[in-house]
């Protein structure tokens, strides 16, 4: 038993005795009849200090008595001596044993060849010196001792081999805790080296995806057919509305076609009219641009984007133009149309609508999702205005046919589709910037490079996982690219489907899969993959309203020619008034048509995929005309 433990036992034992004695004494006192004080007071004020003092006295007495015992003191001295000896230098152990020099050198060599920790080498040195001392003790003379020393050395053999064998044996004698620490140490060293290798990797940029995208989108683009110059000039000529009408113009929510009456006073209309006149030059540039098939600006890396990352391209110039078209000129166009209607100039209003629809064509040809969405919005507003104009004016058959033909030929290669190649290129560009190239799995994720892309995400700082953890756990480059391409292929297939097809076939499973990917293994694939459902639905709905508008024009022509509306849309097609029946994105057929007396109703089933017989949820019309609980009705249009 160690000395300290023995002393501790003595102290605890004596303390327990003291506490017991004092408690016993206090109980006796109470029983005898010291009733002048309460038990609590007696215990607290009188007995407790006495108890503590007695405890202290007896405990110290026990400790001192224990320490005085010779055996324990001797043990303490021995332990102290042993600790001193454990630190005795090995050379001192070997060379101070009165052994011949050759023996001492031999033992020293064995111990050196061991290459082991000091304590084990000291033990072996003591053991071998003891063995040689015992072996040489038989020699009577120095010569005899030398002979015995040589003989014993020969019997021991090669010192290097012996050192190795002894080391092996001592290695096996290591206590488990040393083995554990050594294993941990080795693991930490290896992990450190692995981390260093991991962190010090650098990407190899081989493909300039921005140049690839520029080349892709500039095919066929010339200075003569590029609308961008016109739009830039239009923006430079644009006059902001004066403060007196700015709030008025901005006050109406144009996001989803105003359904209320535009209730302005004459003076307000006059101010708006003046603002429209001031923007006539800008509008003419806008019109000129709308006639061009392309709207292209070569994207470039700015000076701060030294790594030439596509994600670092801010699209400032382009997005400014797009936002300006979507904000300034969309509003300008709508106010022009309303002004034209107020003045009874319906043909002028329809021409302005056509200009806006033409702009949507060249905003689609570039793979930028923002531009696609701006185009959808502009087109939607313009088509709705056309329907309002048709509903509230009497156009001639020739005018109806003219505008129907213009709309029918607006998209000769079919209605616009979302193009995700820009997003795919951005993903591949990100891969080549954040992964090394070569090695196991094609390369690993570099923590330092990942930081740039994570900082641009919308997640809160507290929710962003650590970069190094992601890098360690993320799948390798080849697997990431394969998975990414698989997802992008699925998205590409997805965006070509109508909402109804997605509803009955895959039920949004593509997007569900990307969200349910293992968080760290495919972390890069969870963020840049766009949420496409809303965007693809918008495209389908925009196509539907385009076809619905053409259909309404055809129906109006039929009525003028026949005196009444047809019984079905097929009659229109059969009669040559309609080249293509309008598809309903929310069913497996065409838009629903019902003749009702002197009028008709033309509608889509809407996002609930249920036929409500042309009844629309009017409360939802403003915010979600397609996603309310009823149908989405194109005709009759709401009264304005």
């Amino acid at each position: 038993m160690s000395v300290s433990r023995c002393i501790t036992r003595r102290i605890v034992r004596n303390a327990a005795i003291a506490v017991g004695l004092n408690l016993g004494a206090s109980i006796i006192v109470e029983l005898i009849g010291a009733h002048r004080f309460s038990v609590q007071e007696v215990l607290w004020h009188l007995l407790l200090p006495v108890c503590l003092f007695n405890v202290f006295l007896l405990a110290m007495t026990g400790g001192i008595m224990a320490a005085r015992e010779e055996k324990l003191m001797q043990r303490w001295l021995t332990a102290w001596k042993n600790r001193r000896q454990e630190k005795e230098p090995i050379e001192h152990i070997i060379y101070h044993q009165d052994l011949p020099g050759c023996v001492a050198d031999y033992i020293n060599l064995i111990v050196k060849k061991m290459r082991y920790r000091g304590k084990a080498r000291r033990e072996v040195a003591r053991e071998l010196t003891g063995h040689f001392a015992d072996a040489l003790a038989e020699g009577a003379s120095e010569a005899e001792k030398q002979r015995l020393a040589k003989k014993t050395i020969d019997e021991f053999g090669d010192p290097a081999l012996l050192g190795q064998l002894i080391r092996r044996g001592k290695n096996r004698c290591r206590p488990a805790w040393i083995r554990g620490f050594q294993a941990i140490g080795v693991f930490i060293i290896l992990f450190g080296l692995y981390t260093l290798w991991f962190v010090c990797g650098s990407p190899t940029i081989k493909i300039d995806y921005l140049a690839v995208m520029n080349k892709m989108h500039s095919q066929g683009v010339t200075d003569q057919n590029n609308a961008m110059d016109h739009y830039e000039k239009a923006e430079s000529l644009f006059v902001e509305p004066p403060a007196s009408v700015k709030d008025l113009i901005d006050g109406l929510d144009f996001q989803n076609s105003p359904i209320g009456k535009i209730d302005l006073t004459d003076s307000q209309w006059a101010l708006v009219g003046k603002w429209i006149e001031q923007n006539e030059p800008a509008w003419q540039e806008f019109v000129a641009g709308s006639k061009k098939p392309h709207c292209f600006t070569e994207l470039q890396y700015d000076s701060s984007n030294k790594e030439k990352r596509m994600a670092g391209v801010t699209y400032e110039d382009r997005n400014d133009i797009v936002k300006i078209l979507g904000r300034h000129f969309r509003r300008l166009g709508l106010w022009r149309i309303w002004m034209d209607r107020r003045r009874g100039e319906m043909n002028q209003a329809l021409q302005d609508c056509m200009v806006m629809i033409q702009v949507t064509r060249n905003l689609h040809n570039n793979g930028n999702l923002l531009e696609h969405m701006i185009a959808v919005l502009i087109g939607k507003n313009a088509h709705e205005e056309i329907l309002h104009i048709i509903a509230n004016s009497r156009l001639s058959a020739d005018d109806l046919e003219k505008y129907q033909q213009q709309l029918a030929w607006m998209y000769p290669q079919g209605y616009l589709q979302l193009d995700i190649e820009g997003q795919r290129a951005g993903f591949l560009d990100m891969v080549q910037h954040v992964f090394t190239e070569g090695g196991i799995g094609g390369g690993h994720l570099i923590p330092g490079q990942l930081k740039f892309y994570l900082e641009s995400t919308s997640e809160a700082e507290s929710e962003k996982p650590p970069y190094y953890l992601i890098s360690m756990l993320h799948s390798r480059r080849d697997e990431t690219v394969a998975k990414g391409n698989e997802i992008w292929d699925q998205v590409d297939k997805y965006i070509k489907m109508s909402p109804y097809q997605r509803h009955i076939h895959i039920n949004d499973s593509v997007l569900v899969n990307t969200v349910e990917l293992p968080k760290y293994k495919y972390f890069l694939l969870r963020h840049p993959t766009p949420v496409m459902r809303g965007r693809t639905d918008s495209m389908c709905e925009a196509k539907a309203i385009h076809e619905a508008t053409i259909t309404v024009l055809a129906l109006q022509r039929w009525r003028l020619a026949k005196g009444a509306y047809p019984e079905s849309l097929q009659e229109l097609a059969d009669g040559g008034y309609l080249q293509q029946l309008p598809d309903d994105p929310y069913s497996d057929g065409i838009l629903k048509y019902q003749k009702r007396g002197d009028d008709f109703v033309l509608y889509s089933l809407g996002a609930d995929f249920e036929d409500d017989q042309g009844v629309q949820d009017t409360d939802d019309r403003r915010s979600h005309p397609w996603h309310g609980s009823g149908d989405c009705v194109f005709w009759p249009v709401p009264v304005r």
Partner: protein
Amino acid sequence: MKFERELLKGVAPVVVLEILSRGAMYGYELSEALEQRSGNILTLGRGTLYPLLYNLEAKGLIQADWQEMENGRKRRYYSITGKGKGKLASQKEQWQQLQEGVNMVFGWSAPQIAHA
């Protein structure tokens, strides 16, 4: 007589355990005892002895303690453990069977015929 290294390799641990089973010894004492008790037939190389002892210690078959002598020098005494005793017993049984089998092959003893 110099024995084949591989032959001695198998027998060394068991004879060391046997000698230690009769009492604790230090390294030099053990090597002398081995020669003496085997009639100088078995000579364990000194270079083999200590690695063997450390291996046996690592396996838990023997244990070692430093003891201080009167002259102040220390010796490391080895003694057999309970596990070592069990191992020794099983090894001795195996050696006996092996010896009987070899003797029969060499014709040094008659085969034991099992009676039904």
